[in-house]
């Protein structure tokens, strides 16, 4: 038995075992986490070895004597498998102390089952070699994650979020299915590998349809509406997996089809690039306006999907305009960002999970000063924030650096590529600045300063199983940021070279870039060490005093006076008001004895706002008109069935 199959079996065993052992809460968790963890570790090592020794591995099984279920692991699949197994492994470990309510033992057991199914189906999605297998795995993935989203089904909000997610993932799947139908109709084959025999117009239709379908899974604007609802509803380790890796299967789908169809028209690259820019900027703008820490992180997923799409779009443009270096830089940057985002985003969701578990609230403006009691969570969250803002020497910078280099290559080309590259570079710069603003807000308001409410304070941080994954992830952020050589090598191996019509990618120039990043980071650390040493010298034998913060002359400051996250983001949101309309609820203070007032603000998502008018209302109207079909008369229903059979007989 090869190790990939072994890891699948182990993971599924973990999920099933949890169901049988649910009466022993701790044992059940230990067994489930153990099996899933070992399975993921086996899969991770397997994927890494396959990625390092390039080559593809294929398996095929017969299913119902009709279709064959075939799987294939090439560089691209192996690369996505690495991030899937890595994050799932750590999320499983994290869940051991996170799911600690023994009252909900059965529910926890069921959630482990679906968690195992989710991991296995994600792995199968990225290894599927034909359309049927892909679709099957895709549906299992959507359904299992749906059940994980409604883990806390008592809350009406969570049920609504689950419903929204269900609708979005299935409408998306319908688009993919339609595209696959065209695929089969034109080629007569279910294999991805046979994609390039179609006429160009069919290819373009397929690419655009699948872009919508995969985009709604990945959270591309304007199909991202489910994300900010589903992520806060799900338990934090599930959010980490969903946001960290599950939405990346959408990216995988886009890249896989692009490579297999081999249609190098600039149009599709342009669509991807523009969608990336819009998702990137609007994602982070909406993130700035959120009050709920998990919603905020969910919008950051939209932003990072945007960055990934910018990278991939630059790569596609590079292919279309015959500039291989630009193409490789773009794809390598985009793919590395897939890995990077899965690392820092799961780190941030886990950190948010600890905060929520210890304080009992998700509202940013109610928290404060958590860093003092929650050192490890605070520091790892800080590292994650630096990484997601794309700052050196952390991993976000490396992938953005590659994307920038690709973009600059494009700026030297002719008109269309030039204009798009300029826009891509400037939007990356704006995204970087906005992400910095957003995460200084989160870190500053949640972890620094003083607790804003006396009743919402941090307890101690306990639960080594929760802290260990975060430390590992923070360490990875740092290692990739300083020594990106190995990881760029992995990303380069993942580029589907055959689909782009390139032979082998010469590694040397790209390794040179990573060496430069390492050099620059080292220089920075040497200087930082120098400054630290200087500081030690200056503070030798000095008196260090301690006092309250200076209130600028005001003598009775209270923690309530601290700047809130809402006011921190207000002026930036004002700039983006046309795209992010702000609704405020604040009865004015009036009269000599004013009554107590309150302030509530909400930043509207224009996609969500317009979805109601553009999609929901017309669909409702249409179905209202069709209601007569449902009349409740059994005889006519039988008639429908007969009619359907007759019609089918005629046409097939």
């Amino acid at each position, binding site marked *: 038995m090869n190790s990939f199959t072994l890891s699948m079996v182990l993971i599924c065993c973990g999920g099933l075992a949890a169901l049988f052992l649910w009466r022993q809460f701790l044992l059940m968790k230990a067994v489930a986490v153990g099996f899933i963890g070992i399975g993921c570790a086996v899969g991770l090592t397997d994927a890494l070895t396959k990625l390092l020794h390039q080559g593809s591995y294929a398996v095929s099984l017969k299913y119902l004597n009709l279709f064959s279920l075939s799987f294939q692991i090439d560089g691209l699949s192996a690369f996505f498998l690495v991030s899937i197994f890595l994050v799932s492994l750590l999320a499983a470990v994290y869940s051991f102390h996170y799911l600690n309510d023994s009252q909900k033992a059965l529910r926890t057991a069921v959630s482990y089952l679906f968690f195992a199914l989710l991991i296995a189906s994600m792995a199968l999605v990225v290894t599927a070699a034909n359309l049927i297998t892909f679709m099957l795995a895709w549906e299992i993935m959507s359904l299992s994650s749906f059940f994980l989203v409604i883990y806390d089904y008592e809350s009406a909000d969570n049920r609504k979020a689950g419903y929204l997610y269900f609708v979005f993932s299935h409408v998306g799947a319908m688009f993919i299915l339609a595209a696959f139908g065209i695929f089969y109709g034109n080629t007569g084959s279910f294999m991805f590998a046979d994609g390039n025999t179609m006429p160009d117009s069919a290819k373009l239709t397929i690419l655009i349809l699948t872009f919508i379908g995969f985009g709604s899974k990945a959270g591309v604007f304007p199909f991202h509406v489910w994300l900010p609802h589903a992520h806060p509803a799900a338990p934090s380790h599930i959010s980490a997996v969903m946001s960290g890796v599950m939405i990346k299967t959408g990216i995988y789908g886009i890249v896989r089809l692009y490579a297999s169809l081999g249609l190098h028209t600039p149009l599709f690259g342009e669509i991807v690039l523009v969608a990336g820019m819009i998702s990137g900027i609007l994602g982070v703008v909406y993130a700035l306006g959120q009050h709920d820490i998990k919603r905020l992180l969910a919008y950051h997923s939209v932003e990072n999907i945007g960055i990934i799409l910018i990278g991939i779009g630059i790569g596609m443009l590079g292919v279309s305009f015959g500039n291989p270096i630009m193409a490789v830089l773009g794809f390598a940057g985009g793919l590395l960002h897939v890995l990077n985002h899965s690392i820092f985003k799961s780190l941030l969701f886990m950190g948010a999970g600890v905060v929520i578990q210890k304080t009992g609230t998700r509202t940013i403006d109610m928290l404060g000063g958590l860093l003092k009691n929650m050192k490890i969570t605070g520091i790892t969250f800080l590292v994650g924030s630096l990484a997601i803002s794309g700052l050196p020497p952390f991993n976000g910078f490396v992938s953005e650096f590659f994307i920038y280099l690709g973009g600059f290559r494009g700026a030297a080309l002719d*008109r269309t590529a030039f*204009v798009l590259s300029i826009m891509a570079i400037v939007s990356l710069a704006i995204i970087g600045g906005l992400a910095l603003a957003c995460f200084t807000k989160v870190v500053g308001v949640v972890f620094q300063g003083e607790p804003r409410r006396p009743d919402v304070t941090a307890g101690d941080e306990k639960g080594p199983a929760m802290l260990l994954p975060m430390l590992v992830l923070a360490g990875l952020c740092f290692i990739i940021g300083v020594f990106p050589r190995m990881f760029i090598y992995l990303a380069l191996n993942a580029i589907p070279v055959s689909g782009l019509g390139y032979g082998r990618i010469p590694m040397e120039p790209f390794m040179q870039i990573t060496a430069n990043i390492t050099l620059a980071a080292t220089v920075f650390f040497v200087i930082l060490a120098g400054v630290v040493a200087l500081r030690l010298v200056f503070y030798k034998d000095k008196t260090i005093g301690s006092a309250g913060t200076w209130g600028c002359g005001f003598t009775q400051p209270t923690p309530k006076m601290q700047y809130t996250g809402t006011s921190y983001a207000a002026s930036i949101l004002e*700039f983006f008001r*046309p795209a992010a309309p702000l609704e405020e609820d604040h009865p004015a203070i009036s009269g000599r004895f004013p009554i107590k007032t309150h302030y509530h603000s909400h930043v509207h998502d224009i996609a969500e706002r317009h979805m109601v008018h553009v999609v929901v209302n017309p669909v409702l109207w249409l179905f209202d008109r069709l209601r007569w079909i449902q009349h409740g008369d059994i005889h006519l229903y039988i008639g429908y069935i007969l009619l359907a059979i007759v019609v089918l007989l005629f046409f097939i």
Partner: protein
Amino acid sequence: MNIPVDTILSLVLLSILFSFGSSRLPGLIKVLAFQGVIVSIVPLVIGHDLTTGGILFTLATLTIRGIVIPLCIYLAIKRVAIRREVEPIVGYHASLLAGLGLIVAAVVVSHRFEAPSSSASVLLLPTAIALLVAGMFLLMARRNAIAMVLGYIMMENGIYLVGTTFSVRALHIVEFGILLDVLAGVMIMAIILQNIKQTFDDVDTALLRTLKE
């Protein structure tokens, strides 16, 4: 490539951006005066016809475009004591970004035309188109009547530049006719403004809607 012409024309384009960004009428008038002066010396720099007649015509347009019309408007707002804000419908940030987009669009569109002037300067036609559209934009995006008049004048500058691209002999005569029309228009505007002001105590064009009943 023609450095002096292109420098001058890039100044014209820059003046569009500044006019979009300026929030006060006197500033806007100054920008327009500056633009008028520069636009009218363009034919001289291109060197279509450096005859005495040509130079004279140029000087005459310069005086009217750069000095007389702005001065008229400036005096008009002084006399009727209009509010100094241009009262934007589209905000300044958005206007600035729109200005940038407009310039890029003008550059792209100008490649569609086979203009005979492309030997003189690559920027001439884009600038002319940008001026036309920018004038239109000012007309639509500002509520203040004077700002709208200034937008109209900017459009006229654009038309003049379009004329320059086709170096027809009769250019100056036609152009001069238009300019006199504009001058007359500005004069009439000054008078009407005074009337609007007397009637409504304001020059907000939105108030004209109340005349409906």
